């Protein structure tokens, strides 16, 4: 018997760590992985609520989130390959064409 808010606290911590990784890392692939970490944290909260309210819709949403994450990974990694090809760098701070 584990209270729901244990899962929610873990989800919040994982989300915060994902945000920290998103802000502090410079490699675009790692930044992309931190987005996946945040999506995973949200999935954990979805499943926890689904079990707490005894309602299966939360788990269906998790499946949809996973599908969207897969599509996002395919398109995003294509974009990363293009960036590497055009700028010869994976550092996001070297992709600054729009910066004043």
């Amino acid at each position: 018997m584990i209270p729901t808010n244990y899962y929610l606290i873990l989800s919040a911590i994982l989300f915060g760590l994902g945000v920290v990784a998103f802000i502090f890392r410079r490699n675009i692939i790692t930044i992309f992985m931190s987005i996946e970490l945040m999506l995973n944290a949200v999935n954990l909260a979805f499943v926890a609520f689904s079990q707490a309210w005894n309602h299966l819709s939360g788990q269906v949403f998790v499946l949809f989130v996973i599908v969207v994450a897969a599509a996002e990974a395919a398109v995003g990694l294509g974009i990363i390959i293009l960036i590497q090809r055009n700028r010869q760098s994976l550092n996001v701070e070297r992709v600054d064409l729009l910066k004043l």
Partner: protein
Amino acid sequence: MNVPLIVFFALAAIAVLGAVSLIWQKHPIHSALSLIVVMVALAGLYLLMGAEFVAAVQIIVYGGAIMVLFVFVIMLLNAGAEERTNFSSLAKFAGLPLAVALTGCLLAAVYGSHEQVQTAAQAGVTAPTKALSAQLFQEFVYPFELTSFLILVAIIGAMVLAQRDRKESHL
């Protein structure tokens, strides 16, 4: 202290350590392996909650397919250790306080939530996959069909983006 609670804390510790390792490692391949550890630990938590189908999908799609895609791209681009640059002082000074504030807001929302939410026990009953599939293919059948269209668009988009010989590609 009963057994499910111990399992929960062990898996939660593994997940948090994996996430910290994702931040800490300098090389993207090490970050990717840390992320796989987090995903497997989360799949264990789903099993603990009785969401067995979601746990299986988590392992197969996230830990398998998506992370293999990441590792493949890291190897394809021969990504080395991260280059440390500090062009953005905003991220350096305001990043950590804002991230901590966001996490604090989320934790405060959890503590301030309805009493029933906080104390609702995870009984660990297995959500039958049969009921889940009935819900997916009856109530959510139109969103489900839309996701197949989304995947089709993503496949075409990835193929167009990764085309090699395009003359006008100026990013």
